[in-house]
């Protein structure tokens, strides 16, 4: 590769990473004018076309990349996503995801996507196998679990699907982030290195407890909470922090006791409502209670998409599918990239027989999930590092 070509590709990559799509495409074509047999550049064009929703162009560029180098994994990703988002090309999509799973056998997303392509083509058994394979590779893969929940809904109904939706939700770290957002925790505050140096005021101790919780130092957090409660046993915020610490240890009764006490002092405290709602949602027979708590939470903190998701899930348990659909739609409006809301909305659509809409939500979830993971760039960088053509 010439120095000029290398430099042009580097420019195109830099522009693409910064989202300057038009200039990046121009730089790619400039690179192709020097050497039109570089699979990387074709893959990059495919990615950029996909970003702009130009599916046919993305398919053409990705196909060219694969023709040039059949091991070009980022091109398979772009091609599969383009097929899925274009719609009506499930047979090709199955082939592409299968190829990607061959080229990158440990790539969990390839198996998840392959399962979704199988499901869209009505190969339910093969879809289940693909998601199981994804979970073998990574038991915390939320999207595979969401897909299993949808499959369970189709086969057995909501009562059996809902626990899977909740399990997938628990795998999703954004639920923890919701608690910290409700508590007003700053993201970049580290837990105190030496607890003895934490100041003696309530605010400083609560902040230290929160930072410790975020760092998953539950015992450290408990120590700070105890100091606050020793001075004021009715401190609702400290009680809510204790409830969350217990929740994280799956000590649900202790979490319930602390959050109920907190709410007896401050009836609309969002952090306490969150912990109590989550405890109720995990107990069979308490969906109505969970819904009541999450409705109150939605009134207090309705700007958070996940609050609406939690409410929607409790409504699903009450067979209030239309209301659940509305809550999911609120979540999607607030955060279009919320995979959990997209899958939930797909479930709500399925209960009303709206299969096409359900499929669309699942494909949007795939789009946002791969984007959130930065999967294209991971594959691209790995390919660029190891895929230097002779």
């Amino acid at each position, binding site marked *: 590769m010439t120095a000029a070509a290398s430099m042009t590709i580097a420019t195109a990559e830099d522009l693409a990473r910064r989202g300057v799509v038009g200039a990046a495409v121009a730089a790619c074509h400039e690179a192709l004018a020097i050497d039109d047999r570089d699979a990387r550049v074709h893959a990059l064009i495919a990615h950029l076309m996909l970003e702009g929703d130009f599916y046919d162009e993305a398919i053409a560029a990705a196909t060219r990349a694969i023709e040039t180098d059949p091991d070009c994994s980022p091109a398979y990703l772009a091609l599969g996503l383009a097929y899925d988002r274009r719609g009506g090309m499930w047979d090709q999509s199955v082939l592409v995801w299968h190829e990607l799973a061959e080229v990158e056998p440990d790539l969990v997303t390839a198996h998840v996507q392959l399962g979704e392509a199988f499901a869209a083509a009505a190969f339910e058994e093969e879809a289940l196998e693909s998601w199981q394979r994804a979970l073998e590779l990574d038991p915390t893969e939320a999207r595979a679990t969401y897909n299993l929940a949808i499959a369970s809904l*189709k086969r057995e*109904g*909501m*009562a059996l699907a809902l626990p899977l939706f909740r399990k997938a939700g628990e795998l999703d770290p954004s639920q923890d982030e919701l608690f910290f957002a409700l508590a007003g925790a700053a993201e970049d505050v580290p837990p105190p290195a030496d607890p003895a140096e934490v100041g003696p005021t309530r605010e400083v101790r609560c902040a230290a407890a929160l930072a410790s919780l975020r760092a998953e130092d539950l015992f450290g957090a408990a120590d700070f909470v105890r100091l606050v409660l020793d001075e004021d046993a009715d401190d609702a915020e400290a009680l809510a922090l204790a409830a969350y610490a217990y929740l994280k240890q799956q000590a649900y009764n202790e979490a319930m*006791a602390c959050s109920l006490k907190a709410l007896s002092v401050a009836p609309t405290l969002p952090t306490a409502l969150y912990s109590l709602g989550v405890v109720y949602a995990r107990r069979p*027979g308490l969906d109505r*209670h969970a819904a009541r708590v999450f409705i109150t939470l939605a009134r207090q903190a309705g700007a958070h998409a996940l609050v609406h998701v939690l409410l929607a899930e409790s409504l699903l348990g009450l067979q209030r599918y239309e209301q659940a659909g509305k809550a999911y739609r609120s979540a999607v409006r607030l955060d279009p990239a919320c995979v959990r809301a997209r899958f939930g909305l797909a479930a709500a659509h399925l209960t009303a*027989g709206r299969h096409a809409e359900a499929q669309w939500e699942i494909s949007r979830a795939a789009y946002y999930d791969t984007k959130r993971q930065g999967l294209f760039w991971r594959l691209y960088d790995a390919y660029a590092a190891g895929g230097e053509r002779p």
Partner: protein
Amino acid sequence: MTAEEAQNLYRSFVDHDPASAIQVVERVRASGVTQDALFDTLYVPAMAFLGGAWAAGEIDEMAFTQAAVVAEQVGSFVMPSAARRDTGVTLVAGTMHRDHHAIGRTIVVATLKEAGYRVNDLGDDVRPSDFLERIEQTGARIVLVFAEMMATARAVVRVREMLLANGRDDVVVLVGGGPFVADAALARDVGANGVIGGAESALKLVARAARDLAASAEDGS
């Protein structure tokens, strides 16, 4: 009285005495508090007392954990019933002959079962005579017929014809599936009494049909 009993329940938790806790629950139940109300009126305040005692340092961490274990043991006595009560209403459901679309029916049937209906699900590819036979066997007076293709949707009329031919004009026929949702006139043409638009719509329609049938039975008696 219940506030006092909530305090008693809390004491039983702290004393690690599940037998006494259950006695409190039974006493409150005997006083007329329904199963669905026990959780809110008794258990929730007792748990709030427990949280308060821990916060105030009246009980230490170990006692709190042990009390929570007793609370767990008592939980099943105060939880609202997860399963809905049996409605006593029997339904027959199935997808029309030559139609193998199962998803919509499966979701609706599971929802109705969960809501306490006795659903006889005949599966897919069901002949009109099979609907009639199961209606006769079970005494069902509501039948849910699903069809996802135009040809099978039109064929639902044969179910109604077979019911009429056998003197079963008292059976309510509810239809579900894309063709009926898209064209309400089609449902009328095949002799349906209503169109199921999905699981929640099925709950509403079946409840209304069951109410109407019960009312007409009372009028007739």
